[in-house]
């Protein structure tokens, strides 16, 4: 969301047209996402299941990027917060018969609360401590779920009622798409406010941010809590879509998957992870069905892509798109310059 300093009238015009074009592009992407389940081959149940998985991954990667891309702290316990939300909502539905539509928000509250505690305890330490401690908290939560089979049924798995009365994938796709849009919209609004400015200031240089009168811990905790709450909310959808929960939801490898998508999409953009999740997770599912005899192939690809992005291509897909856009804008400016000269 960085923009060049706007100085002249003409550059302001260019900036406005850039904003317009961005809006048009976003609308086009949204339109594609809306009609995608009717376009062959995506109009079959199997492919629509992939689409639901992709949209869920997109939303999780967006929430992950909110922490990783802006305050530069990697929440290694992310999957545990997703699972925490799922288990909260699932247990409320199973034990108390509470509707999943209320349960998923309760899941968000619980995950957010645990995120708040974790954040308050770890975020006054240096970034790496916070990342590792979030990982430990995640491991501890997973261990708790595994060791309390009286409540969670442990590794046997908890059967959870579905969110909708149908097992048709299409309505679920629109539910998770709406959840993705809400996640994206809320987090983008926060980022565009003065709070987002504080996040970026802290992410770049804590000392400088503190010198400008920002209380880093307060903003870090706010960011972390919000991201965890969204993780829990999405976890609720996960639970009531797949209908079964096991402690394996919280495995660190799932965090790493989300992390890989977020970084391949482009850190610190929110929309980059949201968009790249679709081709990535659909491609991964296609690979998985194509080469069912080769387990782990898709994760090898994730690993390679993550390494390549970290070493050679730090902006990810969003960075690539931004540089293309910048080049287009420059070329257009040059052309108007030439026209005027002629």
């Amino acid at each position: 969301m960085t923009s060049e300093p706007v100085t002249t009238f003409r550059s302001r015009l260019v900036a406005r047209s850039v904003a317009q074009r961005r809006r048009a592009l976003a609308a086009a992407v949204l339109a594609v996402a809306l009609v995608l389940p009717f376009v062959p081959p995506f109009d079959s149940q199997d492919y629509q299941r992939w689409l639901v998985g992709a949209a869920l991954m997109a939303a999780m990667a967006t929430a992950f990027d909110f922490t990783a891309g802006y305050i530069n702290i990697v929440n290694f316990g992310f999957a545990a917060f997703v699972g925490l939300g799922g288990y909260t909502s699932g247990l409320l539905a199973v034990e108390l018969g509470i509707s999943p539509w209320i349960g998923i928000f309760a899941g968000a509250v619980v995950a957010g609360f645990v995120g708040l505690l974790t954040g308050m305890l770890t975020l006054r330490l240096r970034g790496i401590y916070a990342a590792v401690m979030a990982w430990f908290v995640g491991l501890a939560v997973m261990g708790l779920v595994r060791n309390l089979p009286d409540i969670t049924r442990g590794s046997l798995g908890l059967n959870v009622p579905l969110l909708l009365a149908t097992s048709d994938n299409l309505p679920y796709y629109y539910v998770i798409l709406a959840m993705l849009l809400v996640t994206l919209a809320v987090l983008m609004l926060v980022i565009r406010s003065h709070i987002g400015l504080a996040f970026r200031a802290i992410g770049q240089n804590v000392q400088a941010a503190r010198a400008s009168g920002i209380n880093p811990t307060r903003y870090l905790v706010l960011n972390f809590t919000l991201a965890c709450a969204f993780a829990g909310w999405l976890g609720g959808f996960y639970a009531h879509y797949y209908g079964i929960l096991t402690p394996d939801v919280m495995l660190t490898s799932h965090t790493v998957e989300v992390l890989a998508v977020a970084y391949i999409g482009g850190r610190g953009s929110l929309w980059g992870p949201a968009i790249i999740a679709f081709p990535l997770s659909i491609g991964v599912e296609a690979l998985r069905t194509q080469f069912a005899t080769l387990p782990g192939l898709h994760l090898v690809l994730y690993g390679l892509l993550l390494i390549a992005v970290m070493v050679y291509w730090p902006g990810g897909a969003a960075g690539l798109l931004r540089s293309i856009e910048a080049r287009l804008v420059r070329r257009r400016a040059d052309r108007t310059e030439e026209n005027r000269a002629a």
Partner: protein
Amino acid sequence: MTPATNLRAVPFARRYLTFTWLVLGVAAAVMVAAALFQPSILVDTFVTGGMWALMAAGLALVFGVMNIPNFAHGELFLIGSLVGFTVFSPIQEAILENPDATLLKVIGPFPGMIAAALVGAAVGVGLEVLLFRPLRRRSREQWVMNTFLLTAGVSVLIVNADRLLIGNDFRGITRYWDVRPIQVLGVSISVDRAMVFVIAISTIVVFSLFLQRTRIGRAIRAVAQDEAGAQMAGIDLNRIFMLTLGLSSALAALAGASLLFMFPSFPDAGVQPLYLAWYVVILAGLGNVQGAIAGAFIVALLQTLTVYYVGVGWVDVLPTAFIILILLFKPSGLFGSAVKGIWEQ
């Protein structure tokens, strides 16, 4: 973490330091009493503690010298166990065919461990040359977090390459040395476990002597303290980085090979050693090699006590909770020093 001018920024713990030590002392006394009550706890602690010390010392060294929080450290353990198994399997068959070859029986397990350490070192050097050096050349901005993610990618890659190329099954052995168990403190322990302890302790002693007494060891410590200063003194940083990662990886691989009889080789074999090493390093204070060695035994004791008095299932939960509690009071770790590295600024 911050200058003490801002009172709110003074770690909560520092204001209650005496209280912290009191709590820690009571906790330690309880643990020692429990351990003395049942000598097998002590034995278990020393056997597993020795190996976690190998893992954690390497992790701490890499963080101290290169500022890399290595998330792929467990995968070196995995590689070590895989190499150990590959080398030892034919030797084991040879032993079964000639039951009278005493010498073969005694030294048979060592080639696998040595090969594991060598392969581990090669992988470590390869990682430095192929990944960390290009990244270092490109940008050192946000280095700690970026390398953490990079090593996460490496970990995913190695685990799944293992699953893809080698297979998803367990490759393990029941024992290295087929001899009757020995008696220590009235507890019978297998020769394998005793040997693991001996290997761990002797490796740690050699490793510490290397760091403390040799020129190269001094150079490594100099880089850990002040990179720019070390460079000005004529130390070739690239060489030191290669050596550090190679050494740390060799230690992890050696641990993997020596523990093959307890931890068979399979794609996720590195997960538990990884987070145990991280418990230790966080508990001891990041980058503190000597603290890591001491911390390894503390974590091993916590684990053993949990297994004995609570249940195997809780072995991840209770030590974690305890470590989180300790860090609330001492955020820089048990043996955290006041000296700040470059990475903290």
